[in-house]
């Protein structure tokens, strides 16, 4: 972090000018740096960079604008989202549009909610995989319980992770995502094992 304000201003001016460098790599790097040290003053330059011929420059500019969070970037980001030929750029434009206007704390809290939800989804698909294995030899409920106990004993890491995922609020979501009654039985067995 640059402490001296005069130095910081100098750095910002340098990167604003290198945002128009001939090299696409340098333009891309400059956009990225301006996302960290830049402020509302640099927004017009970054909006301009959304029209760059190089996809990496456009991508980094969307991320920088997401960090600075100025509503004036909204029309340009919307246009990018509907017209850019690059999937990653459009995706990043969507993400930036979701963040602008929220304060940083809110965005961080949302990030962690989204991350937790993804973990639950991964966990659910793991259960579904196990389910396919189990279904092949049609075990009875005690066997399911035993197999799960065994798996969790062998993998303490997994058990620890599951313990974090399976909060009272996440269980209903997982339950809804699992469609099969044997899967429900497995979830119950897992909850019981993890709680021990």
């Amino acid at each position, binding site marked *: 972090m640059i402490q001296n304000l005069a130095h910081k201003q100098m750095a910002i001016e340098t990167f604003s000018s290198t945002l128009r460098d001939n090299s696409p790599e340098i333009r891309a790097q400059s956009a990225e740096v301006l996302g960290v040290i830049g402020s509302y003053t640099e927004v017009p330059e970054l909006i301009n960079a959304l029209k760059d011929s190089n996809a990496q420059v456009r991508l980094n500019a969307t991320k920088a604008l997401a960090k600075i969070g100025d509503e004036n970037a909204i029309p340009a980001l919307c246009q990018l989202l509907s017209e850019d030929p690059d*999937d990653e750029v*459009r995706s990043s434009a969507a993400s930036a549009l979701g963040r602008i206007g929220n304060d940083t704390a809110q965005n961080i809290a949302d990030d962690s909610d989204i991350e937790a939800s993804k973990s639950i989804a991964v966990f659910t698909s793991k259960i579904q995989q196990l389910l396919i294995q189990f279904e092949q030899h049609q075990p009875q409920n005690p066997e399911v319980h035993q197999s799960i106990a065994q798996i969790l004993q062998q993998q303490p890491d997994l058990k620890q992770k599951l313990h974090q995922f399976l909060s009272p609020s996440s269980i209903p979501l997982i339950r809804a995502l699992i469609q099969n009654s044997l899967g429900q039985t497995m979830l119950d067995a897992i909850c019981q094992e993890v709680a021990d």
Partner: protein
Amino acid sequence: MPISNEFREMRFRSLCHSLLNDPSITVRAESALALGRLRDEKAIPNLCQALTDENEQVRINAVTALSILDESLTSSDIVTLLILLFRVPKAMSETPKYDFRGANIGNFAETVQGDQISTQQNYAASQNLAEAAAEIQKLLEQLAQNNPAIFAEQDQAVAIESLHQELKRNPTLKSRLLSALKSGGTEALKIALETILKNPLVAIPVETIKGWIEAE
């Protein structure tokens, strides 16, 4: 600094359009999350529609977005969801009546306890659940029978509006539907919907619906 209404509206439309139309999976998936972050309940019908996306990641993100939005949901969204559920009129007429009494719904009990007493309590709870589920199913079927046109409608916006109108004309049905949903809770609704449609997608947002009903 609050964002102007004009920009807000522009952003909302742009994200909804990408959510439902972009050819790229990552763009649709990211648009779903962005709509969740905006916390604008107008996005709920679009997110519900994304629950039928062909890609799993998009569907998962739509659920995530709905769960972020959860607190501000209204009962009119139940209507939208019901429309979605009735998108498959074939399944509706071909599905044989399901006997809930034989269903293994003891597994749905909220807490997991091994002793005899709680097993009996679970059994009693399943009986209530089965009755509520059967009631919900009956009501939904009645609604579909009286309004075949609504459920055959291909344009979702038109269908939503028609169902809105129908529920307005028939407040008794609406309140019975809601109270059945209330007494049976999430699981009853889920069982009823699964039975009617045999569509795994529709079961996903049931927890969300429960939230809407309780918020009434």
